[in-house]
């Protein structure tokens, strides 16, 4: 199976006009439902009913036997391995139901998910090994070690990504066999829905700062849709001689939000289905490269401007999964660096900034696709089949509704409920956040599995890659940095109490 068809699987077998073929419910809606379900179950904690405390968490370790435990001590009897098995079974049931709704083969999905979950989580555990993850001198002393790569515990995401890359590039037949459960878009959207609630709890403590971040997210929309898009389209059309059919999805893929934007644009301008699919494959490959490089550049040069770094990840890294994941790694690296210098920032603000930027950009994909569709069908390829306003809603990323709902609910619970209830909110949503981490891990591994470099090159998209390379590294990344600096420089996350 080619990388192109892998990308088609990720996208979910769509026509060029972005309408799903068989399933009655889209991955987008399913991600919203699953995310809200986890969030709602976590909120049972407010009524002193702990429904999710059995989910597994991993600590930095030197003794493997102490690496795993349950999220809540009330389920401590389960033990670390028991928690891991319980988490696997629960996710298998929920995602298996989602696979059924998507009309996938349940048995194939179950087998594939089993492989995906255990490899991905094993990579995460390896990434939490103290010699990889410990950061501060106190931690080195605590674990009795004298060196560490200082990747932090969230460096485990990189291990999951590398494991996926190994599977894709060394064991392509195995990658083919597990493709039914390689769904980075589904996993990251579930994670983003949960992240809304997590960010709300973080934001509740500093509402002024949070609202300022939201307002500054508007700059990201302007930058991605109006400035990036026009420049990349011009480069693709004039420097590289691409046709309009190729240049428009490519410009959207590089400028806006990777896969979703490329697919929406391809549908809007009535491109052949293969065009956005090829562009999407390219987006994934470059996103992997960015995730492996940019967080470390941010840590080196932006550790004293944490929110600039967070916004930069949202603007520079394409695809929701890779961007939010890069935000997570960046937060971890920068918080660790500052902690080593004696400054302890609250967690959640850098990742929250990245996610906010990304969500703001995503909201307008449908509108932009409609604008392009209108221009193409009326002025470029006037075939009589014109773009319709309802396509804006059809292309609206529904998981964003979930993000908004959990954010609003989290804020309400943290700010507008009696003190005894509000005090329980962080712990309750913290258990949902443990699932968010697991969905991140699955996302990283899945992105890696989709990145078969050799096959992609064999498809002959070197010239597309050249446009992407020139635009991304010559323009998008640096303008993103400039805009992030203009709007976020000097804004610091609150200090941890």
């Amino acid at each position, binding site marked *: 199976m080619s990388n192109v068809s892998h990308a088609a699987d990720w996208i979910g077998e769509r026509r060029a006009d972005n309408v799903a073929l068989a399933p009655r419910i889209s991955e987008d809606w399913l991600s919203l439902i699953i995310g809200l379900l986890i969030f709602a179950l976590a909120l049972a904690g407010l009524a002193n009913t702990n429904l999710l405390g059995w989910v597994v968490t991993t600590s930095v370790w030197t003794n493997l036997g102490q690496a795993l435990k349950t999220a809540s001590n009330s389920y401590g009897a389960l033990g670390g391995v028991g928690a891991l098995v319980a988490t696997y079974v629960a996710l298998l049931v929920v995602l298996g139901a989602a696979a059924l709704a998507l009309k996938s083969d349940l048995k194939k999905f179950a087998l594939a998910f089993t492989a995906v979950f255990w490899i991905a989580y094993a990579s995460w555990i390896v990434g939490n090994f103290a010699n990889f993850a410990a950061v501060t001198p106190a931690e080195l002393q605590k674990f009795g070690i004298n060196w560490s790569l200082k990747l932090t515990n969230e460096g485990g995401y990189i291990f999951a990504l590398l494991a996926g890359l190994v599977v894709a590039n060394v064991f392509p037949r195995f990658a083919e066999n597990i493709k039914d459960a390689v769904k980075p878009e589904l996993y990251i959207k579930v994670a983003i829905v949960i992240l809304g609630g997590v960010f709300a709890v973080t934001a509740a403590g500093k509402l002024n700062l949070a609202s300022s971040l939201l307002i500054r997210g508007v700059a990201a929309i302007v930058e991605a849709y109006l*400035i990036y898009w026009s420049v990349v*389209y011009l480069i693709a059309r004039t420097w590289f001689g691409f*046709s*309009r059919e190729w240049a428009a999805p490519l410009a959207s893929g590089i400028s806006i939000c990777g896969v979703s934007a490329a697919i929406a644009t391809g549908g809007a301008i009535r491109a052949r289905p293969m065009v956005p699919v090829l562009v999407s494959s390219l987006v994934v490959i470059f996103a992997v490269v960015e995730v492996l490089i940019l967080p470390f550049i941010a840590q080196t040069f932006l550790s004293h401007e944490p929110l600039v770094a967070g916004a930069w990840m949202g603007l520079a890294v394409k695809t929701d999964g890779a961007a939010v994941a890069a935000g997570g790694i960046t937060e971890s690296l920068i918080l660790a660096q500052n902690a080593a210098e004696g400054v302890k920032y609250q967690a959640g603000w850098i990742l929250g900034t990245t996610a906010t930027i990304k969500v703001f950009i995503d909201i307008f994909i449908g509108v932009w696709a409609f604008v392009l569709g209108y*221009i193409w069908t009326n*002025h470029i390829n006037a075939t009589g089949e014109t773009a319709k306003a309802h396509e804006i809603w059809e292309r609206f990323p529904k998981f964003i509704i979930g993000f908004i709902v959990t954010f609003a609910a989290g804020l309400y619970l943290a700010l507008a409920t009696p003190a005894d209830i509000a005090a329980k909110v962080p712990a309750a949503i913290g258990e949902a956040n443990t699932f968010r981490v697991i969905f991140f891990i699955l996302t990283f591994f899945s992105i890696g599995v989709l990145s078969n470099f050799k096959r992609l090159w064999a*498809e*002959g*998209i070197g010239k597309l890659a050249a446009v992407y390379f020139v635009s991304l590294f010559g323009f998008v990344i640096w303008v993103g940095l400039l805009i992030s600096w203009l709007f976020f420089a000097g804004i610091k996350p609150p200090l941890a109490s």
Partner: protein
Amino acid sequence: MTHSEFHEELRQGVKEPLLPVEKKLIGWSFGVGVVLLLILTLINHVFPVA
């Protein structure tokens, strides 16, 4: 269309000169984008984060 035909199409490129409507799209997008960013930068300067 087969993969090899796509490969060839991508390699060779297609001669499609920029239409006036494309030039307008590029120009207006970029121009409006720069103006909006300047306005937002000004707002950001006048109303800094508390």
